[in-house]
């Protein structure tokens, strides 16, 4: 029988279906206990509306693979960071036309940034580094909207948190 971890690792993210929850760094732990499988996940953003869909997808995948009792738990700490997106996850994002995040900011005092700091985010379509920020908020909580000045295509960018 396939391990519970292997099954849980095939479950994809409801909003970024090209990524698995494991690629995204949302799947924290999978434990097989005598009482059933305990899966631990963490939200990307506090208000992430996809959490219930994730729980439900994990439960159905494990049930279909023959696991009976499945308990999906949530942990908030340590808080999710884009640094947890795996190398495979970053590659899949880029292939889907979504620019992967750079390194997340690290602790310390948080400066006010009145002009968006220039970021070298390459266009996932043509590869040009000459891109501009349109909005730091996009179709999902975790993405910003950018535009490539070279090929003029707008694209999404998983913003660093």
């Amino acid at each position: 029988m396939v391990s519970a971890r292997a099954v849980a690792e095939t479950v994809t993210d409801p909003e970024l279906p090209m990524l698995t929850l494991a690629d995204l760094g949302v799947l924290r732990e999978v434990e097989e206990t005598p009482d059933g499988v305990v899966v631990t996940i963490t939200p990307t953003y506090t208000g992430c509306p996809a959490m219930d869909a994730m729980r439900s997808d994990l439960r159905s995948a494990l049930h279909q693979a023959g696991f009976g009792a499945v308990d999906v738990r949530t942990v908030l700490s340590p808080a999710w960071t884009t640094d947890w997106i795996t190398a495979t996850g970053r590659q899949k994002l880029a292939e889907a036309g979504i620019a992967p995040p750079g390194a997340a900011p690290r602790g310390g005092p948080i400066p006010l940034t009145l002009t968006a700091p220039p970021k070298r985010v390459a266009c996932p379509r043509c590869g040009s580094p000459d891109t501009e920020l349109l909005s730091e908020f996009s179709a999902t909580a975790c993405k910003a909207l950018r535009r490539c000045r070279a090929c003029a295509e707008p694209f999404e960018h998983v913003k660093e948190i």
Partner: protein
Amino acid sequence: MSFDNAYEALTEDNDTRWAFGTGFTDPLAGMDTSVPSGVDAAELARSCLWLGDDALIMSHRLQEWVAAAPELEDEVALANIGLDLLGQARLLLARAAKADPALVPAVNQSDEDALAFFRAAEDFHNVRLVELAGGDFAFSMARLLVFSTWRLALFQRLVDSPDQVLTAIAAKGVKELTYHRDYAARWVVRLGDGTDLSHERMQAGLDEVWPYVDELFDGENEDDKALREEFDAVMAQVITAGALKQPYLRPVPTAGRHTEHLEPLLAEMQSVARAHPDATW
């Protein structure tokens, strides 16, 4: 999960795939919510309730911009910020209920729904700043700047709270609020340092919000003073960059705890839950 077609997914043993945001479960599901020894449970609950109410009411005001914002990008931004705050509200209200179940109205609802939809205005503890009605974009940006600057500074301190749940909520919230503050600050600068008309309206918006700033800082100890100084420094930076004037307006007297704006807001927010108490979503 992959299914051959969308309808197949809906016939599964649950209905959470109908849409995100249906089939709500306890936002603290599977978390250790015991109150650490040495922490006064009632006091912890009160703090979480106040912080949760601020987020809930502010989120509602931001949601009012959906389908009414000047540009699609801003509509999406304001909806995202509202969603972050709604997420904070859910966790904080659930935390308050777990720490002190006596706070929760006795209705057949989840704790967070009972607190959000079945309390009267006088039982809400939000600051008046968030409940003010605002159809003006400049006013809304001034309010969002004041609110997120204050809340970010506050959450950075709560990261060291003795309660592990509140600490975790604050640590996530800090990351979100950083983006909210930058967004609001950039709009205040853009409008303030823009045309004569946008400048005039931005100044008016700031003047309208300012009388409600003092109530955010009612503490007297050193840390409360440091919080105010941090807030003032950020505001001064934005006001200077936006070529605006620091308003010097007297605070509004605290006649009642709330303004006349809260009741109509709650009437709208709570109407469906109260009309259909047995509905599920």
